[in-house]
């Protein structure tokens, strides 16, 4: 029983990090209908920017914010000047995904060239732990769960209570109709990619905080659980992605606790493959979203 509760605790912590990434990924797909595989390398970029800042004495949490902004700028530029023009020209979805995979590889190896291939670490984190019954979490994990909860709440408020949020939801739902309502969809897209880029960079730093050490493959490795979470929840549905992240995180930790730890990743892979084969629209995706997926 103790093992179960501990695993669930780890699962919540892992789920929080995955949620940061999955929600951003989902927003990008919902807004632009693009599976942005470069997201993984952008997370790596966030982690390394965070490393750069932390090595110069900046606190990890400030570094998280700054790295988020840096990656946000990269994301907006990437979408606006590479992806959006390709889509406008009628490039097929498959070619776009190849572009994002290739861009991810290029970015990853540029990072390697500048920072080196060896493992890096953010150094000693506070060893303080929190106990709640059998639940055991480190201070960093608790902070990340809190930060993620705050960010998700902020996103929810943005999407539902602000004009920009409504414009974003409108653009994601039906771009042409949104344009005819007078919404500047290009600018709204830029804003969406900026926000999701922030989440991406924050996710990268959060990942680096929670892992003992990391290298340039950080983003590539964690991209799969994030896509799994996003697909599970319903690609394009941020709230679904949050729930999906919890499920993926908990399932992975349970699998690691009760069987081979190496199978932690396999759980995420399996969830993703099964969802894609059985119910591609995910748990909360609409039937309309499925049409988008089947074209």
């Amino acid at each position: 029983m103790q093992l179960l509760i501990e695993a669930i605790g780890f699962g919540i912590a892992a789920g929080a990090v995955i949620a940061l990434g999955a929600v951003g990924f989902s927003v990008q797909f919902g807004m632009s209908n693009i599976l942005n595989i470069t997201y993984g390398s952008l997370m790596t970029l966030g982690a390394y920017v965070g490393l750069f800042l932390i090595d110069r004495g900046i606190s990890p949490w400030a570094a998280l914010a700054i790295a988020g902004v840096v990656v946000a700028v990269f994301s907006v530029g990437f979408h606006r000047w590479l992806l959006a023009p390709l889509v406008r020209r009628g490039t097929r979805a498959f070619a776009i995904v190849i572009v994002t995979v290739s861009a991810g590889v290029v970015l990853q190896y540029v990072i390697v060239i500048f920072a080196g291939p060896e493992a890096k670490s953010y150094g000693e984190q506070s060893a303080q732990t929190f106990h709640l019954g059998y639940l055991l979490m480190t201070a960093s994990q608790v902070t990340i769960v809190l930060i993620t909860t705050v960010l998700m709440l902020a996103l929810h408020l943005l999407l539902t209570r602000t004009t920009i949020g409504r414009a974003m939801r409108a653009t994601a739902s039906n771009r042409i109709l949104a344009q005819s309502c007078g919404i500047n969809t290009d600018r709204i897209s830029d804003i969406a990619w900026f926000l999701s880029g922030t989440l991406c960079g924050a996710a990268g730093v959060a990942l680096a905080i929670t892992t003992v050490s990391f290298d340039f493959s950080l983003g590539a490795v964690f991209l799969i659980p994030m896509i799994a979470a996003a697909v599970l929840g319903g690609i394009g549905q941020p709230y679904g992605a949050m729930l999906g992240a919890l499920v993926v995180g908990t399932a992975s930790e349970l699998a690691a606790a009760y069987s081979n730890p190496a199978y932690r990743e396999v759980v995420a892979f399996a969830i993703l493959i099964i969802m894609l084969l059985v119910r591609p629209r995910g748990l909360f995706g609409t039937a309309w979203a499925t049409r988008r997926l089947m074209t």
Partner: protein
Amino acid sequence: MGAWEFYLVVILVYLGTDLLAAWGLNLEFGVSGVANLAFIVTIAAGAYAYVVFTLDTPAAGGSFQQYVGGFHQPFPIAVVAGALAGSIVGVLIGITGLKRLRQDYQAVAMLVVSLMAATVVSADTPFLNGNAGLVLLPQFTPFSDQDPETRRWLFVGIVAATCVIGYFVLRRFTTGPIGRTLRAMRDDELAASAIGKDIVAMRLAVQGVGGAFGGVSGALLVAFIAGWSPGAWAYIETLALLTAVIVGGMGNDRGVTIGTFLIAILVLQGVQFLPQSFNSLRLGLREDMGWILLGTLTIVFIWVRPQGILPERRPKYGGGP
């Protein structure tokens, strides 16, 4: 054997195996529209099958490596085993990709399959010696009475002969009635099935044949380099092949041949000739630059010339009013 001569042998072997693999990927993706980003797994299957067929039983090797099989077969049988393994794995991958998903979704699913395969093989040590991989293959059996130099050139000859035969087999699938049916399936699946073509059977058949090409490629490669581990078939290796296909010309066999020449020789070998100072900065820097170059090439070509250097020849039907 001089260093340059050996280098030439290495390049030719790599070129030959890359050609077989690129042709297989082009058959699946360029001609038939199957977004198989897990192609590298068929190559790995062929390589592992070859290894498992040529090695002796694990106990005979002092239980230094753990693996299934160990049938101690001669070279030709092991290569056939490689082809079969590649084919079976190709069909299995095809079955996972049967759901009529959007192409980019399918591509991501295949990428995940390839990652999953690498993770499972790495983690499950009794299967294929996990992350450490398999080494110590016996020398390949034909021409064992010749000296090593001549045997290397004879191996190049075997690879070349396989390529020639492979090309003729390939043309049977990419041209003529079969080729036209596959392209019809790629261009408009609904229309093709409306006139009675069995889409599922064709897709699986194409993945089987493409997988066989991959399997032979892997088997020949591993026979040469005499060792194979999950590090050799990371998911980005499919990208190198995909770049060759896209740059050369999707759906055009000659184009893909040119593309493979360019990628295998100019890019992957070209970076080896970067100034020595690059490598003294850090080990492996040249390979990293190679990947950056490949990725950039793919993006540039999709932006500027997505049909590739030699575009697919669209048949022109003459006559008419």
